[in-house]
């Protein structure tokens, strides 16, 4: 069926995939809030939410419902357009990143081969970087338009933090790109499926990337933009109701996406460890691969939470010193060593 030179099946298939990914991301983000509270509780020898539904499983629904029923307040001195734009942008950019992540290999349904990736663009990882750096505008615009000193300080902190850590993140990624020789996430995952996971080749690079990912997601110990005790919740201090919910939600979606990206870049993406996918049927391999990716992502989300309930927040000067004086030189060193090794191996061959 071709109408207007468009393959409508292709469009439908992509639309379904987009809907599935967004729904999945939202559900995972919802249950991340539940998981966060449970993890916090068990780490602090408590029980956590257990009243709403069995094991408190309906708690995220109750929380969401509560947020919807809260009073919607837009401060009189706030710039109304930007005030609404802030959380929407935060949510939008959080969602957009999921477009280039390969969620599985491919399905064969009704004689069609369906790639389990919304867009396999050849600059996938650059796209991720572009969108993630847009993400800070959500924080910045919301903070600025609140017309509140604390919010503004939080926004400033967020912006300068993301600028500082994006550098180290990018440089650590350059080393990875030199090893893999591709910018497409799909190709990277396929390379890892056939060879070693990239974590073996780039352990230091992964460590730097991980630390930077914590900073990019505004997670403890880098949650300075929203530090409760000195900035009174920082950039979302003036927000209430579901607009606050959007900010909080965006943080959890970011966590999920960055977990998926780290799994794809360094831990083989949808590669199932110790199993050769070629022995399985295509559809089984795709299904199991998606599950493997989800498990890896969940482990990363758990790591994010585990770290949050272990270490306290950095002081602002410590954050800047770590970013500029430690991580950037380290990532440069990592890039240099990687380059030297590649050169040496190509010479010796």
């Amino acid at each position, binding site marked *: 069926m071709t109408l207007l030179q468009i393959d409508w099946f292709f469009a439908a298939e992509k639309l379904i995939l987009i809907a599935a990914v967004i729904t999945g991301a939202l559900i995972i983000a919802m249950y991340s809030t539940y998981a966060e509270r449970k993890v916090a509780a*068990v*780490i602090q*020898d408590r029980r956590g939410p*257990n009243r709403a539904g069995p094991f408190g499983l309906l708690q995220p629904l109750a929380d969401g419902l509560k947020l919807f029923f809260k009073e919607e307040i837009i401060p009189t001195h706030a710039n109304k357009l930007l005030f609404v734009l802030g959380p929407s942008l935060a949510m939008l950019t959080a969602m957009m990143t999921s477009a280039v992540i390969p969620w599985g290999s491919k399905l064969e349904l009704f004689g069609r081969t369906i790639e389990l990736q919304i867009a396999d663009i050849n600059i996938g990882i650059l796209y991720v970087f572009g969108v993630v750096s847009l993400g800070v505008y959500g924080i910045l615009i919301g903070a600025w338009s609140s017309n509140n000193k604390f919010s503004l300080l939080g926004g400033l902190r967020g912006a300068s933090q993301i600028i500082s850590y994006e550098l180290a993140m990018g440089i650590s990624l350059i080393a990875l790109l030199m090893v893999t020789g591709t910018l497409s996430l799909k190709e990277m995952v396929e390379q890892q499926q056939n060879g070693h996971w990239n974590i073996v080749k780039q352990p230091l690079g992964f*460590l730097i990337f991980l630390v930077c990912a914590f900073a990019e997601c505004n997670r403890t110990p880098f949650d300075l933009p929203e530090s409760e005790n000195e900035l009174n919740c920082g950039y979302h201090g003036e927000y209430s109701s579901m607009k606050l919910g959007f900010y909080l939600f965006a943080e959890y979606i970011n966590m999920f996406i960055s977990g998926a990206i780290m799994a794809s870049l360094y831990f083989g993406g949808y590669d199932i460890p110790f199993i050769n996918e070629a022995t399985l049927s295509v559809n089984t391999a795709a299904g199991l691969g998606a599950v493997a990716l989800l498990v890896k992502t969940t482990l990363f989300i758990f790591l994010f939470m585990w770290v949050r*309930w*272990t270490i306290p927040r950095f002081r602002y000067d410590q954050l800047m010193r770590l970013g500029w004086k430690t991580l950037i030189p380290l990532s440069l060193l990592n890039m240099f060593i990687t380059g030297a090794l590649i050169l040496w191996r190509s010479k010796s061959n």
Partner: protein
Amino acid sequence: MATLTNRAKPVSRKPMNWVERIYLWNILKGMLITLGHIFKKKATINYPEQKRPFSPVFRGLHILNRDEEGRERCTACGLCAVACPAEAITMEAAERLPSEEHLYREEKYAARYEINMLRCIFCGLCEEACPKDAIYLSETFAPADFSRRSFIYGKPDLLIPDPKTEPEKFQEAKGLVDQRKKSKA
């Protein structure tokens, strides 16, 4: 300066070594500690379903006792009201009629017996003062209500269930009272 306890530890001021400065190792150690806490016994209990056992000397809301035949023990002598430091107890005495012998144990009884639970400090002096074993502090606590008025407990609120008409409820309430007696003896 002499220390008050022998638990004081001197503060270490030696500069951090290389491993400590990169901090990652210490983060890892901290994370292992928090991981260990995941498997520890929880300090919290599921409160309304599960309750912690009270100490045997716990002093909760009052209960007016009956004897085995279901007759009220209180004779309205007023000793509890005299003993009460918070002046929370009020009562009115009445004389038992010949037809009421199955209701009251002795010739005099309390027609009205009120304790203001907002005044009460739960010291238990009324229990100690009572010569007739008529008033006890039970293990019930934490009442909640919307008006001050409803915190003045009258006889219907205070009396233990009748062992003849409601034997199970009586035993339930009685069990607590007996436990307390045992621990005092």
